[in-house]
């Protein structure tokens, strides 16, 4: 997996180096490329790199032709991550010396221009224009859905009642859509069989939703200070608790959510209330359901081995359910 990450970032270096832009703009883009490389170094399993390559291999037996689409997916991710980090006040330290206008420009170039330029590399290997257009369209369609999801995520803190259904629909747009793209483009490049393409896209969507819910759970319970609570986000665990609590308990939770935006002082109390409402277990169940769905879609796609096994391994890790051996260790640690 590390080798694949290295190959994708080597191609991205070439793409950015060849851009006909002033060196100042190129250097701006390289800041975010550097952020991505650091993450890939720490976590080569990055879905944005692995899914397009593994799906292409699972269909055709060869991953190399898919490098430009994996690079395009990575560019989309880097742009979306930059926007998301800006919205959530979580910018990487590498960006701290740049003003917000520069950050926005870099995100726009990464999201709107560079994926298409990376796809254009496929012309060199004889990919027909119709397929290039189809790939390009998929990226445009995904950015549209992703940004609509981000917008909802941004608006939810100011809405009086956000339902569990609203929350999951937002997650499907914000994270299901890009993951569906990562898997779909690998398949589109390898086959014209719509049955196979749709199976991989559905696998990607369910996988992406599971990953986002894991991210939401980690943000609340993974660290002492929750950025989502500080930002007033209405992620699934919070929406679930608000939907099941009634009367005074619900009012108390709403008051706690309000003060949690001011400081992390009450985050522990809030976490306890969420757990008491069954929200950690409910989120784990939702992750489980989407993981099982993804598993069935992947099975239906009949992936070639060993790529299929690697895809299943990535999916197996997308769970909030402690493994039995992990659970057995805990009593001794406490």
């Amino acid at each position, binding site marked *: 997996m590390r080798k694949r990450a290295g190959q994708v970032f080597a191609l991205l270096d070439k793409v950015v180096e060849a851009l006909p832009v002033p060196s100042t703009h190129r250097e701006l883009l390289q800041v975010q490329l550097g952020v991505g490389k650091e*993450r890939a170094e*720490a*976590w080569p*399993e*990055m*879905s*944005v790199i692995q899914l397009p390559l593994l799906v292409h291999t699972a269909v055709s037996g060869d991953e190399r032709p898919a490098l430009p689409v994996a690079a395009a997916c990575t560019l989309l*991710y880097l742009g979306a*991550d930059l926007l998301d980090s800006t919205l959530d006040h979580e910018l990487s330290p590498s960006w701290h010396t740049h003003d917000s206008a520069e950050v926005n420009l870099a995100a726009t170039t990464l999201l709107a221009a560079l994926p298409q330029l990376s796809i254009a590399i496929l012309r060199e290997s004889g990919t027909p224009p119709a397929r290039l257009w189809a790939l390009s369209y998929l990226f445009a369609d995904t950015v549209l859905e992703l940004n609509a999801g981000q917008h909802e995520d941004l608006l939810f803190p100011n809405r009086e009642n956000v339902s*569990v*259904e609203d929350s*999951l*629909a937002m997650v499907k747009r914000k*994270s299901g859509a*890009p*993951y569906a793209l990562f898997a779909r483009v690998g398949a589109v490049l390898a086959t014209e069989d719509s*049955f*196979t393409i*749709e*199976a991989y*896209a*559905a696998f990607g969507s369910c996988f992406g939703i599971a*990953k986002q819910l*894991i*991210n939401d*759970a*980690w943000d609340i*319970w*993974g660290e002492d200070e929750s950025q989502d609570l500080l930002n007033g986000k209405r992620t699934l665990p919070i929406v*679930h608790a608000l*939907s*099941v609590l009634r009367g005074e308990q619900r009012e108390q939770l709403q008051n706690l959510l309000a003060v949690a935006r001011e400081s992390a002082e009450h985050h522990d109390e809030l*976490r306890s209330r969420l*757990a008491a*409402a*069954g*929200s*950690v*277990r*409910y989120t*784990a*169940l*939702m992750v*489980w*359901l989407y993981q*099982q*769905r993804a598993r*069935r*879609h992947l*099975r*239906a*796609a*009949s992936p070639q081995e060993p790529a299929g096994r690697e895809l299943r391994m990535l999916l197996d*890790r*997308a769970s*909030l*359910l*402690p493994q039995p051996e*992990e*659970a057995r260790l805990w009593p001794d640690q406490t």
Partner: protein
Amino acid sequence: MAQQEGYERGRETEQFRRDTALRSLDILSIKGGQLSAYDDQSLRGTTTTLDPTSWDYGFALSPKEVEDVKDFMEKSASLSDEEFVRHIRGTLELERRW
């Protein structure tokens, strides 16, 4: 082989009849029955409404998904909320990433 398995996009939910899904939810809400060990209010959020929107997002469980829920309940029945939280804190910092 894929065709043999009868795969169609979204067949896990979209193509099941809503009344079948409602019956599935009824099964899940039975108290004192097979699922009583998991009557932890966690599913209450799934039973309040069942409109066409929720149909798309997993609240109308197919019979197969009811089995998935039972499987989850069996696997998690002996786990406390604290154990879920320890798992999240201990192992998922990198898994949460794209």
